[in-house]
C-alpha cells in the first residue's frame, strides 16, 4: 500500500512535468509526420508509418525514462522532501520501488497514447488493425522499464547529469553489444572474442527487446521468444532495482 502511495505520488509528479508533454507532443508529431512522408514515397507506405511510429515510441520513451528517471530520487534529496518521507514508516526499498512503479506507470500511459496514435494511423492507411505491432510495443516497454531502473540505480549514488550520461550509455552499449560481439568474432583475436562473448551475456542486450523489424514485416519469431524476453528483462529489472535499493539503503540521509 505504501509502495502504491509513493508510485502514485511519482506518477502525479511526472504528469506535472513539462518535459513529459513536450516529448509526448514530439512523438505524436513524429508519428503524424509519417502522413507527409507517405505522400513522398512510392511503395512501402504502411512500413514507413509503422517504422516511424515504433521508432518514436522507443526514442521518446528512452528520453522520458532517462530524463525523468534520473530526477526521481535526486530531486527528493535536493528539495529535502526525502526527510519528510523517511520520517514516516516507509523503508528505503519501498521508496525506490514506489518511484520505479510511478515512472513505470507514466511510461505505460505514454506508450499507450503513442500506440493508439500509431495503430489509428496504420488503420487509416491499410483499412485494418495491425495487432502484429503489439509484441514490438510490449518489448519496447520492457526495455524502457529496464532503463528506468538503471536511471534510478545511477541516481542513487551520483548527480543527475552523470546519471543521465550513464543511463544513456547503458542504452547505447545495450543496443550495440550484439554487433560488438559480431565484430570481435570477425576481426578480433581469441582474447577479444572471449571478452566480447562474456560481456554480451553479462551486460543487458537491449537489441533482444527490439523486434520492430520482425513485427512490421510480420516475420515469425522463435518459439517462446516473447515470454523468454520478458523473463530476461525481468531478471535485469530485479538486479538493477536490488542494486539501487542496496546503495540507497547505505546513503547517509540524516
Amino acid at each position: 500500500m505504501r509502495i502504491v502511495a509513493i508510485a502514485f505520488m511519482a506518477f502525479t509528479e511526472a504528469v506535472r512535468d513539462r518535459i513529459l508533454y513536450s516529448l509526448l507532443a514530439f512523438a505524436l508529431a513524429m508519428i503524424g509526420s509519417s502522413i507527409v512522408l507517405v505522400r513522398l514515397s512510392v511503395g512501402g507506405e504502411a512500413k514507413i508509418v509503422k517504422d516511424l511510429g515504433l521508432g518514436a515510441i522507443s526514442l521518446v520513451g528512452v528520453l522520458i525514462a532517462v530524463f525523468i528517471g534520473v530526477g526521481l530520487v535526486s530531486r527528493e534529496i535536493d528539495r529535502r522532501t526525502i526527510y519528510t518521507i523517511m520520517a514516516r514508516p516507509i523503508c528505503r526499498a519501498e521508496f525506490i520501488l514506489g518511484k520505479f512503479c510511478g515512472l513505470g506507470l507514466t511510461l505505460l500511459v505514454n506508450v499507450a497514447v503513442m500506440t493508439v496514435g500509431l495503430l489509428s494511423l496504420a488503420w487509416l492507411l491499410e483499412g485494418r488493425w495491425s495487432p502484429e505491432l503489439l509484441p514490438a510495443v510490449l518489448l519496447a516497454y520492457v526495455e524502457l522499464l529496464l532503463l528506468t531502473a538503471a536511471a534510478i540505480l545511477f541516481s542513487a549514488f551520483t548527480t543527475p547529469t552523470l546519471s543521465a550520461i550513464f543511463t544513456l550509455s547503458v542504452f547505447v552499449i545495450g543496443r550495440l553489444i550484439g554487433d560488438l560481439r559480431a565484430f570481435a568474432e570477425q576481426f578480433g583475436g581469441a582474447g577479444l572474442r572471449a571478452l566480447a562473448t562474456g560481456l554480451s551475456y553479462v551486460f543487458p542486450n537491449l537489441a533482444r527487446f527490439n523486434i520492430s523489424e520482425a513485427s512490421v514485416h510480420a516475420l515469425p519469431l522463435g518459439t517462446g521468444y516473447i515470454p523468454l524476453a520478458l523473463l530476461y528483462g525481468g531478471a535485469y529489472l530485479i538486479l538493477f532495482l536490488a542494486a539501487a535499493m542496496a546503495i540507497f539503503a547505505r546513503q547517509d540521509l540524516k
Partner: protein
Amino acid sequence: MSRRGVLGATLTVAAMIAVVPLSLALERRAPPAEGGVGPAPVLLRASILRPLLLGFHPLAADLYWLRTIQYFGAHLQTDEQIPHLYGLVDLVTSLDPHFIDAYQIGGLFLAIGKRFPEAIAIYEKGIAANPQRWELPYDLGRLYFLDLKDEAQALRWWEVTDRLPGRPHYVPRFMARLYTKTGSLETAFELWNAMYEGSDNEWVRKTAKQEMQKILAQMKAQTAPKAGR
C-alpha cells in the same frame, strides 16, 4: 509601458518584418543547385551504418528509400543518368532486407534506366533474403521476358514463383505460353495487365498502363499492314 518594454517590442516587430525579406535575399544569393537534380547521394556502407543506428535501421532504410525516389525522379526528368541508383537501392535493402517494395520498385527503376545487370542483382538479393516471397522471382521473370527477351530465364524464374505460397493464379498460364512460345505481344500485354490489376500503387499502375498502351499500338501496327494487303 516602460522604455525598455517599448524598445523590446519595437525590436521584436522589426525582427518579424525583417525575416521574409532576409530569407528572399539569401535565396537569391544561394549557390545554384547542380543541374537541377541536387547533389549526389551520400552512400555509406550498410555494415558500418547498421550498428551505429542502434536498432533504428528500418527507419533509416525508409529515409534512404525516400531519397532513392527523389534521386530517380529528379534524374528521370532531366539527364536520365542514374549511376547512384543501384547503390541507394542496395543500401536500403541492406538496412532492411525484408523491404519487399524496395526490391520490386528499385528493380523496376533500374530496368527503366536500362541498368539490367543491376536490376537482376537487386532481385536476386531480395530472393536470397526472402525465399518465401513469390513477388521477387515473378518480377525477375518479367524482367527477363519483357526487357531482355530471354524466355528460358523468364521460364526458370516463373517456375520458382509457381512453387511459392500465395502466387497469383495467372503464373501457370504464363508458363504454359512460354512453353509453347506463342503470342509474345499478347503475353507481354497480359503481364503488364496483371501488374496493373495486382498493384495498389498508383505509380506502378500508371507505368503498367503506359506499357499496355505501347503494346496495343505495336499490335495495331502489326495488324495494319496485313489488313492493308
